[in-house]
């Protein structure tokens, strides 16, 4: 007799527990409230999604060069297509677009390098590239030293947003760290100066600072001295952003147990060494989500420079809407496009932040 044990084949779950119907029962209609919500949102989707898709894709106008060719009822993407170069590069001379492209590629390269280089190279190359890249990109954008000069009032479009945001980020991080350390300093003068600058720039809306920079500041310069408008906007953004950055980093600093500093002191480390080797690496690491958060906020805030007449992407759209050949009311297309571009960039930034967090995770996370 064959004594080997043959298990009975597992029976399938009852048909009431699997399959699409069961899934729907489980997740969509599990209670009267959920059923109501499902019906409600289902109605909303059916009501609103098809018209949007129809507007954006099916009956949209893609081919042509003037608004008269927008004959179908949907979106007039010809508007975006024709203005695309302006939206991206502003009035930057067309034959020199490669310089902007190169600067942007460099930016991506600098960010990507931080992830893919082997550990021992990463640190050195990382710091060098962070110091060298801004100078190189400034040279590429502005010209001089053998390149044709492109004055800043020709810069514009989305590349100006990226540039302002990146430059703001790069400058505000060190200033923010210094202000945050200064705020906790034992020297009264340093402390008072840092606290008052932080509170001054944090307590005022960015728009106000931009206005100050663009309308008030020029009046205080002696005759003949001109500070570039873009430069003024950049300084305003940097000061504002540094104040926020200082507060974010202060949060990180306060989360580091006092014992860490005491341990460092007992090892004989001075103030700067303690900060550089013990406190800041830990403090910055826990601050990353908030730092990225303020960066994303800054990136979106760069559109505010439109109120001082700089042609970033949003004001380019507004200028385009005012062109007498495009007066057909294309603002929805324009704003949808800007929203989409910003969403793509901000989402990418938040993914990068998650990546950095995982990379630096040394087991303190409590999740």
């Amino acid at each position, binding site marked *: 007799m064959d004594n080997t044990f043959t298990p009975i084949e597992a029976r399938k779950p009852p048909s009431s527990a699997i399959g699409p119907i069961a899934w729907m029962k489980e997740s969509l209609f599990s209670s009267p409230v959920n059923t109501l919500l499902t019906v409600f949102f289902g109605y909303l989707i059916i009501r609103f999604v098809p018209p949007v898709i129809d507007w954006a894709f099916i009956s949209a106008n893609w081919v042509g060069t003037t608004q008269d060719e927008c004959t179908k009822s949907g979106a007039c993407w010809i508007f975006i297509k024709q203005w695309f170069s302006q939206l991206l590069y502003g009035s930057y001379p067309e034959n020199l677009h490669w310089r902007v492209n190169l600067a942007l590629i460099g930016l991506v390269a600098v960010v990507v390098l931080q992830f893919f280089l082997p550990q021992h190279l990463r640190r050195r190359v990382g710091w060098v590239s962070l110091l060298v890249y801004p100078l190189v990109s400034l040279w590429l954008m502005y010209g001089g030293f053998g390149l044709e000069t492109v004055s800043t009032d020709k810069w514009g479009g989305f590349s100006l947003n990226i540039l302002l945001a990146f430059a703001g980020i790069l400058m505000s991080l060190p200033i923010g760290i210094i202000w945050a350390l200064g705020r906790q300093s034992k020297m009264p003068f340093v402390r008072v100066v840092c606290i008052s600058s932080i509170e001054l720039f944090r307590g005022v809306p960015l728009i106000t600072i931009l206005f100050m920079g663009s309308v008030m500041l*020029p*009046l205080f310069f002696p005759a003949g001295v001109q500070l570039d408008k873009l430069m003024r906007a950049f300084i305003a953004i940097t000061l504002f952003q540094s104040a926020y950055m200082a507060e974010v980093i202060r949060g990180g600093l306060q989360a580091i147990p006092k014992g860490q500093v005491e341990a460092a002191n007992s090892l004989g480390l001075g103030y700067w060494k303690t900060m550089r080797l013990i406190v800041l690496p830990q403090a910055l690491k826990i601050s990353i989500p908030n730092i990225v958060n303020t960066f994303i906020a800054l990136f979106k805030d760069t559109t505010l420079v439109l109120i001082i*007449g700089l042609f970033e992407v949003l004001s380019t759209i507004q*200028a385009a809407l005012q062109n*007498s*050949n495009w007066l057909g009311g294309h603002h929805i297309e324009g704003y949808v496009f800007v929203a989409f571009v910003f969403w793509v960039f901000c989402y990418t930034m938040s993914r990068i932040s998650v990546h950095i967090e995982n990379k630096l995770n040394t087991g303190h996370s409590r999740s």
Partner: protein
Amino acid sequence: MKKSVLFGLVTAAIFSSNVQADTLDDVKKAGMLKCGVSTGLAGFSQKDEKGNWSGLDVDVCRSVAAAVLGDASKVSYKPLTAKERFTALQSGEIDILSRNTTWTATRDTSLGLNFAGVVYYDGAGFMVNKKLGVDSALKLDGAAACIQAGTSTELAIADYFRENNMKYKVVTFETSDQTRSGFESGRCDFLVSDQSQLYSLRIGLKDPDGAVVLPEVISKEPLGPVVRQGDDKWFNIVKWSLNAMIEGEFQGVTSANADEMAKSGKPGQKRLLGAEGDLGEKLGLSADWAHQIIKQVGNYSESFERNVGMDSALKISRGLNAQWNKGGILYSPAMR
């Protein structure tokens, strides 16, 4: 004591920056005219897809550049918002402000600026739905008005309706786009705005032919170029560059026939074009300054029709902006 010294220094710095020694020299040295324009206003200063500027206000800059530098394209455009325009001029960031700026007594007297003439006589007007069958603003008693908030139009319409003993309801909007949408969706019976704006708003309607612009103009909005006070030489150059365009139309000189007229035109035409007389020298410019303006930019009529008139999408009729002998009030002082 110390405070007052500091205060004195600061005010001195402010005022010294207002006085620019010699704008003409600066412009010639730089080889570029820095011109303040708006960030975008259909027909007046607008960017195209290639980043080139055009418009009636832009043409004023181009004519000054043609007169001073002999090349209308040597203009560096500085787009300005309404709030920063006067500061930019006072601080010397721009040489001339040509940004649909209304010439008012307050601005002329209190800002340290001079208005160098009028390039466009604007004024608040009405746009109504054709279905209303209204042909005069006096028939709008009891109607609802769509107005953009915070504009001088609000005051103008209040005055107008009170003077005529009529009542109206106000629906205000934040931007001109919203005002248009409000009018389109029937939230009001008529829309009030500056005439020059009405036409561009009308084009943006889904059915432009369903709306009419009424003939009444209820406020004075003379728009013109502005320069800093205290540099009379430069003031004269801007003033007469504008006048040269107006006189060019009056004398029948166009960009097409300017060269020919300089050789074989009537005495008045020759004087304008610098073939006779020494107007250019008196202005501190070359003899053919006006010739360059008309040849490169065109006379007033050419510029008007190209930018806001019948050759443009806006299709604004000349109205007040016709020559004085053709029913308008455009009048250049004598060119001699």
